[in-house]
Structures are given as structure tokens and as C-alpha cells.
């Protein structure tokens, strides 16, 4: 089933993952999965997407950008793989961790970096016996 942005009505093909970051046209965060039968009723019959949702009893999906992604510095653009925000508080850059065998630790908000936590390097990160 295609889905539509409830804000601007843009239609996305099946399995489109781009909507997961919000509608590329209007930035809308809510989407409705509409069957082919009713998908053009917004244009043809002047119904709101919400109305179609109600009639078809489909749930409106809300894409949430939570946590670091909505911050001014996107965590994905940072160089460190783990940031120690303060004692006992961490932010993890999952993409960076999956990419590189090194762990780059960022400390606080002052842009200091350090390579590897001592306790992390002690342990082998590789479960395979060579």
C-alpha cells in the first residue's frame, strides 16, 4: 500500500524509507497508509487525509525524530563514536560504531576528544577466535 503525507498529500511508493526522516516536500511527520482504492479521494473528493484515515480505520503513523537528531549539531556529523555528556550519561553514535573499529570518545560539550576508553581496549571487541 502506498502512503501519503497527511500535511501536503505527497504520495510515497511501497516500502519507501525516505519518509522515516519526515516528508521531503513539506517536512510533515504524519503519514497514512492508504489502499489504492481510496488513495486519490483527497484530490477527487476533497477529503482531508485524516478523514480518509477515519473512514478506512487506518492508523496515522507519526515519524518521530527524537533525541540527538533534532539538536543543532546532528550526532551523525560528529566525529566521536561515544560522547560522555557527564558522569553516567552517554550518547552513542551507532553509525560510527558500526563503521570503525576505533572508539573515539568525546568529553562534555567543549569538543575534547580522546581515543578509546581504557576499559574498552582491554577487552577484545571481536568474539571470533582467530
Amino acid at each position, binding site marked *: 500500500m502506498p502512503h501519503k503525507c497527511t500535511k501536503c498529500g505527497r504520495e510515497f511508493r*511501497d516500502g519507501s524509507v525516505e519518509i522515516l526522516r519526515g516528508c521531503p516536500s513539506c517536512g510533515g511527520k504524519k503519514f497514512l497508509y492508504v489502499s489504492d482504492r481510496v488513495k486519490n479521494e483527497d484530490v477527487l473528493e476533497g477529503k482531508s487525509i485524516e478523514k480518509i484515515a477515519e473512514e478506512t480505520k487506518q492508523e496515522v503513523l507519526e515519524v518521530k525524530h527524537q533525541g540527538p537528531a533534532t539538536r543543532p549539531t546532528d*550526532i551523525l556529523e560528529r566525529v566521536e563514536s561515544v560522547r560522555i555528556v557527564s558522569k*553516567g*550519561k552517554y550518547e552513542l553514535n*551507532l553509525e560510527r560504531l558500526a*563503521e570503525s573499529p576505533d572508539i573515539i570518545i568525546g568529553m562534555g560539550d567543549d569538543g575534547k576528544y580522546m581515543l578509546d576508553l581504557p576499559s*574498552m581496549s582491554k577487552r577484545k571487541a*571481536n568474539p571470533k577466535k582467530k
Partner: protein
Amino acid sequence: MVAFPRIRNFFGKLFGKKRSRVGIYGPPNAGKTTLANRIVRDVTGEAVGPVSEIPHETRRARRKEGVEINSGSTKLLIDIVDTPGVTTKIDYHEFMEYGMEQDEAIARAREATEGVAEAMHWLREDIDGVIYVLDSTQDPFMHVNIMMVGIIEARKLPVIIVANKIDLPDAAPQRIKSAFPQHPVVEISGLEGHNMDELYAKISEVFR
């Protein structure tokens, strides 16, 4: 009596087969350990690790090697790797809500961070396929899920998405199917053992 495919412990090396290492990933509390235990218990009568409502109970990945999955005429030998829940933020306050002392909570936060880092590193070369477990009562569109599925796709790892906890009244596995239509989704209850045979069939098919 039980409709599960036959599973038993078995030493793959004797048969010279390459074993696929299957990582069970997903957010905290999705039911990864419960699922790993269910699969392994049927093989050896043992468990992989403790299940808990406290997030990050599994702070070190645990493995069970040589699990034979039989489904129909296919046999597949896999290693099951249960991982800590993946998150982008870990805060010791979370643990204090479960009655832990501050020092213990801080130590636990650090361990959890290291555990996630380790599990992410394994995706680079040590894991051959992923079972991504989601709680069907939760919103599948969480940032971490989208990111993880993206990382798994970028690594070109075969993946099965498990819509877990379908025994709960507010489970909405359809949302998970809608969120990830590009991947196979199997609806199960790891706790009750619902629909495990379908999962075993998918495992045999996807991780072969």
C-alpha cells in the same frame, strides 16, 4: 504435543559445516533475551541470560553456539548472539528509577555503553545475519530503529524483523509491517512461544 520444528544441540564441526552467526538486535526491552532463551532452551534446556524489565539487563552479549534449526527438510546450524539493547543515549538516572543506588547506576550505565559499542562493532564482521526484535506495542518509527535497519542494510546483512509480544492486547504488529515493508516480518510472542515455527522457517530460509 509441541508444534515447534525439532531443534537440538549438535556439534557442527563434526560435520564440517560453516555456521552462521545470527545476532539478535533491537531496542532495550523488546524481548531479545526472552527470544534467545526460548530458542536455546529447546536445544539444551539452558538459558542464555536473565530476562528483566530493567533496560540493559543484558550488558554483555551472550552466545550459544551450534543451535540446529530444523524446518521441513532444511537443517541449519547457527550461533545465537544475544546483544544489549541498542540506544543512542544512556543515562544512569534511568537505572535509579528501578531503585538502584547512584554509584551502581553509574557503573551500570558505563557497562551498558560499552556493551552497545561492542555489539555495534560486531556488525562489522562477526555477524552473518540479524534478527531485529521489536515490541509490537511500541512505535516502530523510533529513530534508533530506522538507524539500525539502515546500518544493517548498509552492511548487506540478511535480516528478519520480529514483531514480538503479540500476546499483549495493544500489540499492533501491522505497524511494524508497514514501517519495514522491504524486510520479512514475523509476528511472535517469545514469552508464550506463539508462532515460533514460522520464525524457524524464516530463519532457515533467510540465513542459509
